[in-house]
């Protein structure tokens, strides 16, 4: 089965016919993560690790993030992300290539330039959604 957090970047809309209504509802509301607490925990932890790792996301270079030390100030503090970006696809898009939103941004295009894999981006997004 599909692991939460490992969804392909452009996840096809789930075909309702093969899913129970409850499951389809969970998916479309983005509740899959919270419906599987144990597995979700591990991708959240992995996402945090990747976000803080200097050789991976190194997001703290520019962003203040809860739980991190020595944050930079180039980007906004990452708080209330879940409220600000209820749709995880928006976060995925920002991580894949932030220059699409803002051609002059200093944020590196993590997906486009293969700094992070799709799987890693998804784990980081799981983590961001806890902020």
């Amino acid at each position, binding site marked *: 089965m599909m692991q939460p957090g490992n969804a392909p970047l452009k996840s096809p809309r789930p075909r309702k016919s093969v899913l129970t209504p409850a499951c389809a509802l969970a998916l479309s509301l983005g509740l899959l993560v919270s419906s599987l607490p144990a597995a979700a925990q591990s991708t959240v932890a992995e996402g945090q690790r990747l976000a803080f790792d200097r050789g991976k996301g190194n997001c703290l270079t520019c962003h203040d993030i809860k739980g991190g030390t020595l944050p*930079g100030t180039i980007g906004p503090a990452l708080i209330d992300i879940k409220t600000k970006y209820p749709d995880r696809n928006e976060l995925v898009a920002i991580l894949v290539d932030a220059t699409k939103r803002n051609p*002059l941004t*200093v944020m590196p295009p993590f997906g486009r*330039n293969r*700094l992070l894999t799709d799987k890693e981006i998804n784990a980081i997004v799981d983590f961001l959604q806890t902020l």
Partner: protein
Amino acid sequence: MRSAIRFASIGLALAALAFAGAPAAAADTVDPVADAKAFKKFFTDKFPKVKLEDFVNGPYSMDEDLYRQWQEKEQFPPYEFSLELGKEMFAKPFKNGKSYEDCFPNKGIGIRQNYPYFDEKEGKVVTLELALNRCREANGEPPFSYVRDEMAALTAYMAFTSRGKPFDIKIPNDPRALAAYENGKEYFYTRRGQLNFSCATCHVQSPGERIRAEVLAPALGILNAMPIYRSEWSGMGTTSRRFTTCNSQIRGVPFNPQDDEYRNVEYYLSYVSNGLPISGPGARP
């Protein structure tokens, strides 16, 4: 690909340096005088409280607490040892009896503000570090490493004897000089490497911001304090060392010190800081 990069770099230059007022037709002609004016205006508009001559203090000009720390540090400057060594080295004759003073105008004293210059015979930019090594080689001495202590000591001494003199970089009426300037400028604004950074991403778009614990220096006056003592390096760093370090930090491929690209970018950055005083050697956190 190439045109996409150009587009991005020009877009950045336009956005960052507000060339908007320039007539469209002039957009493609190289106008260093107008560049330097727009460049200064960009930084003085962005930091209205910082005095023009204070930009040479790099990160310290951006933050009042840091500025105070810096003034305390200047009581016992950590570059003192390097300055002493440089003075000694500069005075000591080569094996052939000549010395550095024979290679430079005014015996090498008080001339830092004129480097880099465009050498019309060679058709290229000559930096102070390069001129020092050429002086050594012309006198039968092996060149120094561009990134190590000896070069830092010599340039520290030469900067010290030039303190307070305004940068006075000339672009002679030679199309190759203008091209070197333009190439340096293009290098400075072109994003590259996996992280998609240009020099301007950090030093034009984000000066005063913290990148982890480091406060980014503004590009205006960024070379006036070179060479610098950095606590993080527990030692001195030349301009070559700083350029190559910045380049490898962004996972870009650094060139070799004194490759044409770096000579040109030093020419561009020094020219647009014309009028700001030499303050080297400097000390940094």
